[in-house]
């Protein structure tokens, strides 16, 4: 961790208009939860829809995408990353610091609101809400790592990230069973199943597989991002 890198990253992330979009996500979740409670629907079913499909399936990846690319892609895009890189700082330190800021922000903006929304909707019963929160923590961290890597790899990180989240996870993942094994969202759901009381949350991917893949993808993406950042080439205007 480098405190200066962390400070610059956090200010860049929250100091721009981006913060409004980021804050809109948890606010939306809480508003929907307040409106949806006590409307006569089965409570558990409601929790699955809001915390599972909406939050874990859409809000966490969107937040992870905006935050994960926001902590590095913007700086690479406008060239200001030069001021971080022209320093005797190990590249992995820059990447892990930025990742820590991204993970912390994703948790704050998605996992915490999910827990609060869950309490509003369902309370603490059956550990269902805790399960979804743990799932959001795990998948939020993995999304941050993957989207940070995308930010280092490509100038079109947001498009590539959206394609992954929307096309692979949401579209293909809901029809093709095999695709679910390679879906961050499903790994989070698998953790939710493990934490919640038996039979309350159903996940298609086994816990051991999910944990392994979370660790491999998280660590792998971070290592690869460090290597790629060390060899970052400045684009020439010539």
């Amino acid at each position, binding site marked *: 961790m*480098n*405190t*200066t*890198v962390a*400070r*610059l990253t956090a*200010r*860049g992330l929250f*100091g*721009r208009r981006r913060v409004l979009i980021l804050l809109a996500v948890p606010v939306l979740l809480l508003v929907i939860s307040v409106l949806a409670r006590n409307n006569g629907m089965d409570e558990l079913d409601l929790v699955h829809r809001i915390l599972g499909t909406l939050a874990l399936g859409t809000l966490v990846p969107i937040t992870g995408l905006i935050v994960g690319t926001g902590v590095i892609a913007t700086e690479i895009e*406008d*060239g*200001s990353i*030069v*001021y*971080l*890189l*022209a*320093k*005797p*700082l*190990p*590249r992995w330190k820059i990447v892990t610091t930025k990742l820590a800021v991204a993970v912390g922000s994703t948790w704050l903006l998605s996992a915490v609101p999910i827990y609060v929304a869950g309490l509003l909707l369902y309370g603490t019963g059956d550990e269902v809400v805790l399960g979804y929160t743990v799932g959001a923590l795990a998948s939020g961290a993995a999304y941050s790592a993957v989207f940070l890597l995308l930010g280092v790899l490509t100038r079109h990180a947001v498009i590539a990230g959206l394609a992954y989240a929307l096309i692979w996870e949401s579209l293909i993942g809901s029809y093709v069973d095999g695709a679910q094994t390679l879906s961050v969202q499903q790994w989070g759901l698998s953790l939710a199943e493990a934490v919640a009381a038996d039979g309350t949350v159903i996940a298609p991917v086994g816990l051991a597989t999910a944990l392994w893949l979370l660790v491999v993808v998280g660590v792998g993406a971070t290592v690869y991002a460090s290597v790629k950042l*060390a*060899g*970052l*080439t*400045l684009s*020439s*205007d*010539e």
Partner: protein
Amino acid sequence: MAVITIDKVSRWFGNVVAVNDVTMTIGPGITGLLGPNGAGKSTLIHMMSGFLAPSAGAVTLDGARIWRNQEVYREIGLVPEKESMYDYLTGWEFVLANAELHGLADPGAAAERALALVEMGYAQDRHTGTYSKGMKQRVKMASALVHDPSVLLLDEPFNGMDPRQRLHLMELLRRFGADGRTVLFSSHILEEVEQLARHIEVVVAGRHAASGDFREIRRLMTDRPHRYLVRSSDDRQLASALIADGSTAGIEFDAAEKALRIQAVDFQGFTTLLPKVARAAGIRLYTVSPADESLESVFSYLVSS
């Protein structure tokens, strides 16, 4: 002594060769990297500052490879061409952050010293996003100088500066050069380079065209054969009068243009000869225009010589 060595370096992007087998040594004092736009100046500076790998050859600082070696930044201060620099920070916060990133013992004092050096203390509490181009350039300088580097690399530092800012920056760079630091800056304007640099490296179309003292380069550039297009009241008589003199190398009568194409041996001799000859022969000159005064043609002459 900090010396950057570029040894048989080439860099290509796909099929395009941006830098072609360049060898040069940049030592203490001010060196100007001169060349027309697109000549490969930025590519060279990117390689010297560790932001681009050479496709062939080696770029080193005192023998240490620069690419993928973050330790060189203890010695190198880089002033990039791009302007973006964390617009949401104030000048002070920006320079202080740079000092902290270098891991300096007293970053506050270093930032203060660097800002004073570029005379930006008065505006240090404003956001860098509100700075003029010249102010940004100076704060970028402060960030590059904050760790007291022995090498300073500047990519087109005078671009877009007004004359006053230009003078101020030149004065600053002169001081660093006099301190025995290795200062390298790029420019596509000869006058700019010769005002500042004793030593000039010229690159044209990716190749190392010339190297040496600025007087040497200046002489090469003015003493080349000059071409003129001349129209007069009697072209043929003027031609015969001119060819008798040694300062004219060749004359062609261009029937389509109805003009003479004259190749002069030296600039000084020909420009005094032409009006004299014309007057003596009673010929009226209608047009005298240099045919190859563009910077590119000056540079390409250097390449071929």
